[in-house]
């Protein structure tokens, strides 16, 4: 009998360790919610958002040039202590990395890559961002913009797969909100000067906004900062949807895009600036 007891004790301990070790990937703080099979199914209406670099491409293809000093300085990376700030600015820096790389500002791009690695590691995504070979490959290809672009897409793919494989897509929603706001902020400065030139690109960017807001609404958190950003984004969406040119346009975004006027652009710009400031300013401790 003693033998059986010992055997059972040994087997139980072994199984406890193996069961606990089954999913050893680091999890980000999420409130404990009992999940049922029904909770694990996808939404009736879901979406696939583009990569931050695609957002930057959209503006670049419309003629957006590089303006020094617009991006969030990479040196701010150590100021983000709260996880939500780190996630939002992970998105901001993803856009800044793409903006610099696509415009040949490779040294700045490299700084943003390092900032991404730091913030990514801090939010528990070290498996994606701790790969030192990324920086090495980046350094080797500083002169080859196509290769740099390829590398950014590759990093993004790694990031996506990791989040999806570890049921962490809700983090992607926060990160993408930061990336999108940074991108429309970068576009605003030039677009205000020439609304006609950038109107279509802006309308395309805004076609993503309702889904971004939806992603934030799904956050399993009542973090004050997320609540505030959600409110500002909702305000931006309401303002956009309320613009006369947008109201006149079809609900089908494949039809003729609304033409944004100078006044429209000014209204959007004010809100974008406020939102961006909110995102890049670290939470007071």
């Amino acid at each position: 009998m003693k033998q059986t007891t010992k055997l059972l004790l040994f087997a139980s301990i072994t199984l406890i360790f193996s069961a606990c070790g089954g999913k050893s990937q680091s999890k980000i703080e999420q409130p404990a919610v009992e999940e049922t099979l029904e909770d694990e199914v996808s939404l009736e209406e879901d979406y696939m958002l583009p990569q931050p670099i695609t957002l930057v491409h959209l503006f670049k293809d419309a003629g957006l040039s590089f303006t020094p000093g617009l991006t969030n300085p990479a040196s701010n990376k150590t100021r983000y202590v709260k996880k939500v700030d780190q996630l939002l600015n992970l998105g901001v820096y993803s856009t800044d990395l793409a903006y610099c790389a696509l415009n040949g500002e490779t040294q700045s791009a490299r700084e943003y890559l390092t900032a991404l690695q730091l913030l990514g590691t801090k939010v528990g995504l070290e498996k994606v961002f701790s790969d030192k070979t990324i920086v090495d490959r980046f350094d080797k290809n500083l002169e080859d913009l196509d290769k740099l672009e390829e590398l950014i897409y590759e990093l993004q793919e790694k990031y996506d797969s990791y989040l999806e494989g570890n049921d962490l897509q809700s983090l992607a929603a926060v990160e993408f909100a930061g990336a999108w706001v940074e991108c429309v902020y970068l576009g605003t400065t030039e677009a205000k000067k020439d609304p006609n030139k950038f109107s279509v690109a802006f309308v395309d960017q805004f076609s993503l906004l309702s889904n971004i807001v939806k992603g934030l609404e799904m956050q399993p958190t009542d973090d004050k900062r997320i609540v505030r950003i959600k409110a500002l984004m909702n305000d931006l969406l309401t303002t956009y949807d309320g613009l006369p040119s947008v109201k006149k346009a079809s609900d089908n975004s494949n039809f003729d895009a609304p033409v944004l006027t100078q006044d429209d652009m000014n209204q959007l710009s004010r809100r974008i600036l406020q939102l961006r400031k909110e995102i890049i300013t670290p939470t007071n401790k």
Partner: protein
Amino acid sequence: MKKFLPNFLIGIFVLILTSSSVLQDDNSFEAQINAIKQDCKDKLDGARYEGSKVTYFVPGTQKQTKTVEVFFLLRGEYYVAISAKKASVPVNIRLFDAAEDVPERTLLKEYKNVGDQVILLKSEELNELYRSKVPEVERLKNLFVDYQIAAGKPPVKEAVVMVMGRKPL
């Protein structure tokens, strides 16, 4: 009291064995999804990865529809590979130019009971099809992919996998 320890340990043993098997099932399900994702990526014909979306569902007593909205924001050709291999029930795929609540949305194409095959959509082909149906449009920027999932048993989690890539101009 003497019997308590062995009985208690047997209880723990059974409990852990069960949860360990659930974890293994879960891991094996995820491994299968990853393999399907790779199949889809392989179909992208060298297009640069843009994103993926796994749509999870549980077959029920009634048919259900799940929609994934995708964006073709840039010029160049987008490739979308879809696999319903991890679905035990028939799945139809219907492609629309707008969401369900938009009146007069256009059905671009329909694939019935896709089975194990990977469906590959190409934006250029879809654009041509779209222009033939709605001449005033230039191109698709927004595509709504409906999965019509038939009723069925058993009640376990299943999935449809989508992977998108783009070939720049």
